[in-house]
C-alpha cells in the first residue's frame, strides 16, 4: 500500500527507526478524508533555520543596545521582535481556515505519473499567499496563492510503483509566508483511491489467434490460412493496421479489411497465451494486448482466473479489462 516501503533497520539506525515508527503511528491517527479543513488542531508551526538566526540576531541587537546604552537600539530590537511575532501569527493564519478538496485522480498505468488535483478554498476576505503542496516526504512543491473568497487548484504528481487500487499518498501543505522565519504545515491523508493498471509491455508480440466462435467450430480455419479476406472502402476512424496497402496502392484509394468478416473468430486474452512464466509479466503483456486489440477495433474478451469478461470492444470494455488486470 505504502509509497515509501523501506523502513530503516532497527539496529543500524535506531533513531531513524524510532522516528519512522513514530511517523507511521502518527500518520495512522490522521483521519482519511477528501475534504480537509485546516484548524488550530491540524496546523503545526515551528521556527525555520532563518527564524532561529533571526532570534540570535535579536539577542545580539539587544546585548549591543544594553552595552552601548542605545535607546534607539532598543526601539529597533523591539520593533523587529514585534514584527516577527506578528509574522508568526500571519504565517499560521495563512493555512488556518483553508479548506482543501481532492479532485479524484484518473486511473494510470504503473510507471506513469498520476496527477492529483487539489482545490484550495479560501473563505477569508484576504488573499493567502505562498501555499505549497507536495507529497509527504518529497520536495517537489507546487506553489500557489489563493485569492480572497476564491479557489485555486494545484496539481501534485506521483508515480505509483505497483498495480492495484492505491490510496492517494499523504499530502502536506506548507507555507513560509511572510518572513520565512516560521514553517507552518499540515499533513493530510486523502480518502480517495487511485486505480493503477499494470504497465503495458513495450514491444509486445502480435495478438494471439482467435478461437472459433462457439457453435461454429467446423468452420474454424487452420492456422496460417487467409482469414482476413473481406475488404471494403476505407471509413474514417479505421485503424491503419486494417488498411490493405497493396490494394490501396493499385486502386488509388484506401481499402480496409472488413472486420465483420474477420470476426468469425473470438479473440480471448488469457495468461496462458502469453507464454510467459511470471504472473506480473503475463499481466503486463495482457495489458499491452488489450490496448492493441482496442486500437485495432477488434472484439476481445479476457479470462483471468475465475473471471471472464465477454468479448466486446470500446472504452467501457477496455476499462473493465484493465481494472480486472489491475486488481487480480
Amino acid at each position, binding site marked *: 500500500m505504502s509509497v515509501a516501503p523501506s523502513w530503516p533497520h532497527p539496529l543500524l539506525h535506531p533513531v531513524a527507526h524510532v522516528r519512522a515508527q513514530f511517523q507511521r503511528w502518527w500518520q495512522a491517527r490522521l483521519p482519511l478524508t477528501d475534504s480537509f479543513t485546516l484548524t488550530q488542531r491540524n496546523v503545526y508551526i515551528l521556527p525555520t533555520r532563518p527564524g532561529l538566526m533571526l532570534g540570535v540576531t535579536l539577542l545580539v541587537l539587544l546585548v549591543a543596545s544594553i552595552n552601548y546604552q542605545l535607546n534607539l537600539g532598543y526601539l529597533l530590537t523591539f520593533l523587529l521582535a514585534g*514584527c516577527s511575532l506578528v509574522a508568526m501569527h500571519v504565517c499560521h493564519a495563512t493555512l488556518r481556515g483553508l479548506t482543501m478538496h481532492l479532485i479524484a485522480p484518473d486511473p494510470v498505468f504503473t510507471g506513469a505519473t498520476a496527477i492529483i488535483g487539489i482545490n484550495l478554498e479560501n473563505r477569508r476576505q484576504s488573499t493567502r499567499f505562498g501555499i505549497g503542496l507536495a507529497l509527504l516526504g518529497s520536495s517537489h512543491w507546487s506553489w500557489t496563492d489563493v485569492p480572497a473568497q476564491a479557489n485555486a487548484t494545484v496539481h501534485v504528481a506521483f508515480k505509483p510503483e505497483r498495480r492495484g487500487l492505491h490510496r492517494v499518498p499523504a499530502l502536506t501543505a506548507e507555507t513560509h509566508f511572510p518572513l520565512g522565519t516560521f514553517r507552518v504545515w499540515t499533513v493530510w491523508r486523502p480518502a480517495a483511491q487511485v486505480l493503477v493498471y499494470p504497465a503495458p509491455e513495450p514491444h509486445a508480440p502480435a495478438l494471439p489467434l482467435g478461437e472459433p466462435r462457439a457453435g461454429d467450430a467446423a468452420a474454424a480455419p487452420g492456422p496460417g490460412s487467409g482469414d482476413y479476406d473481406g475488404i471494403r472502402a476505407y471509413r474514417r476512424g479505421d485503424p491503419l493496421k486494417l488498411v490493405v496497402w497493396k490494394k490501396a496502392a493499385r486502386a488509388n484509394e484506401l481499402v480496409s479489411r472488413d472486420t465483420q468478416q474477420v470476426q468469425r473468430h473470438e479473440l480471448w486474452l488469457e495468461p496462458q497465451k502469453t507464454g510467459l512464466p511470471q504472473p506480473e509479466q503475463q499481466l503486463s503483456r495482457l495489458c499491452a494486448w488489450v490496448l492493441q486489440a482496442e486500437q485495432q477495433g477488434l472484439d476481445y474478451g479476457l479470462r483471468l482466473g475465475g473471471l471472464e469478461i465477454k468479448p466486446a470492444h470500446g472504452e467501457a470494455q477496455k476499462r473493465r479489462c484493465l481494472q480486472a488486470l489491475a486488481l487480480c
Partner: protein
Amino acid sequence: MLNPLHHLRLLPRDSRDTLFMLGVIAWVVLPQVSHLPLWCSLLSGAVMLWRGWLAVTLRPLPARWWLWLLLVLTVGATLFTHKTLLGRDAGLTLIVVLLALKTLELRARRDAFVVFFLSFFMMLSNFFFSQSLLTAGAMLIALLGLLTALVNAHMPVGKPPLLQAARIAGSMTLLGAPIMVLLFLLFPRLAPLWGVPSDAMSGRSGLSATMQVGNIASLALDDSIAMRIRFEGAPPRQSDLYFRGPVLSIFDGRNWQPLRSGLPAQLRPLPNLRVQGAPVNYQVTLEPNQRPWLLLLDATPNAPLLTGFEARMTPELQWLVERPITDLLRYTARSYPDFSHGPLRPVAGLQDYLELPFGFNPRTLQLAAEMRRDPRYAADDGTQLVAAVLQRLRSGGYVYTLEPGVYGRDSADEFWFDRKEGFCEHIASSFVILLRALKLPARVVTGYQGGEQNPVDGFWTVRQSDAHAWAEVWLSGRGWVRVDPTAAVAPGRVGSLQRLQAPRGVITEALLGNVSPALALNLRAVWDAVNNRWNQSVLNYTQRTQLNLLKNLGFESPSWEDLIYLLIGIVVLASLGGAAWTLRDRLRQDPWLRLLAQAAKRLQKAGVPLAPNSPPRRMAEQMHARFGPEHPAAQRIGDWLLRLEALRYAPPAAQHSRLPALQREFKRLRWPT
C-alpha cells in the same frame, strides 16, 4: 523606442527584486559613508553598481573565485586600515563589504536572509553615531524596505507587485508597534554587561581630552547639540556663559594635555574657590559625550544634583563623574559667575604652568625676552604684560578664521609672526606659550562658550560649534584669572548672539541661499524643540523613568522584578487578545457564505444529503427530493434558498443592503425535521 522606466517594468522578477534589494542596502549603508574608510565606500558602491548592471542586462553572476578574491582583498585592506579585524570600526567596515559582496551571489531567495541580518547590524551601528529623530526616521524606512524585500521573497507565485509586499510589511510593522512600545517601556534597563570597547568613544564629536592644532576646527563645523539648559530666572550675560571642560597644562610642542602632577594629592594646590554675588540656578540636559565630564558654568562650588553618578571637582575646577556619560544626562546646578580661585601667593605647584618644550617656537621666546627687557614692565606683576599681549592681538592685524590652513612645527611662531590668523585654539595656544615665555604661569581651558535661546520652548542650546578654548593666567594676589584672547582678536566670537557661521558649501548655498534668515532660524527652532522632546522622552528614558512609570501605575515600591511581572501579565493578556483576533478572523468570513453554511447545517440535520459546496439551488433540489414538492415548509425554504442564490449575483451594494432581511427571514423559517 522604449523609455527606461518601461524597460524597468519589463524586467523579469528576479532582476526587479535584486534592484530593489540593492536600493534598500544602499539606503542602509549611505548614512555610514562618512565613518567608513574611502576604499570601503568605493568598493561597496562599485560592487553594487556592477550587480545592478548585471541584473538590468540579465547577465550571469560572476564566478565564485571573484568573490574570494574580493573578500581576501577586503580583509587585507581592513587589516591595513584598522590594524585589526575586531572591534567596532573594523567590524563595521567588514560588514559593509560583506553586504555588498553578498549581493554578487544573490542567487536563491534565501540569500535575502543573510543580507537581511547583516543590514540589521548596519542599522544598529548607525545609532553609534547619531540617535536623532532624522536617523530614527531613516532607519524606519530601511526597516520597512527590508521587510518588504523579505515578504516579497516569500511570495513564490508569479510577479507580485512590490507595492503589495510593502503594504503587508507596513501592516505588520503597525501591528508590531504596540509590542515595541510595551517592551520599550517595560524591558528592564540594565547597566552595560561588560566594558564598552574603547573605540566606541572615538566616533562621536565632542570636546577632546587633548588639543592639537586643527582639532577644534572640525568641531566648529559641527552643528549638533552638546547640551540644553533651562535657567531658573534670568539667564546670565552671554559673555559669562563659559562652560568649563578639560584644563590643559602640559605642552609638548604639538599637543596640549591635562596636567598629571607628580605631587601627592595633599601637596597639590587647592582650588581655593571664592564666590560672591548672585548665583545662577539651571538645569542641564547633557548629550552623551562618552567622557566623564560634566559641563558646568564657571564657577560651581557645590556638586550638581544628579542620579546614577558621583560628581567630584578637580583642583582645576572641572567637574568629573566616575565613568563616561553614555546616555542623556540631566542635572541641576548652582553657579556663581563672579568668582576667583587659585593660590594668592606663589606655591610650588605653579612651576608646572611655566614649562615649555625645548627647541620649539624660538621667535616667540625671543619676543618674550625682548618684552621682559623692556623697562616699562620692569616692576610689573604681570597685569601689564598681559594687557600688552592682548593689545598686540588687537592691533597687530590678527584675524579670526575657521580655515587657517595647516600649521607647521612652530605653531606659536607661525601665528605670531607669519600667518596671523587662526581660531580660538591657535590663539589660546599661542597666547599661553607667550605668557609662559614671559614667566607668567598660564594654562589653556577648553569648554563651550555661549549658546542661544530657542524661542519655541525657552531652552538654551549649546552646540558643538560653541566649543571654545581660552586661557587662564596666574597673577600674584589675584590667583587664576580668565583671559579670553579670542575676544581680543574677534570680539564678535565671544559674548554676542552672532555666531560665526561656518563657510557654506556650494550646494548648501544653492539650497538655502534664497531662504530668509528669519524663516530658517524659526524652522530650526521648531526642529530643535521637536528634537528636544524626542531626547527627553525617548533617548532619556532610563531605569528611573521606568520605575516612575510603575509608581504612577500604582506600584508601592517598584523594583525591576515588578517590571517582569507586568511584562508577563501583558503577554498573557496579549495572548488572549490573539485568541480573540483568531475568533474575529473566523467571523470575518463572508456573511453570505456563513448564512449558506447555517442553512446547509439545518438541512443536513433534517436528513437531506448534501454534497459539500452545494449551491443554494442544488440544496433546494435535494430538499424537495427528500420531502416532496408539496411540503409547505420545504416550499418556503426552497423559495428562500433561490432568493439567497439570486442575491449572490446582485451588485455588491445590493448584497450589502438586502442580506440582513434574508438573515432575519432565516431565523423565522420553520425547518423540517
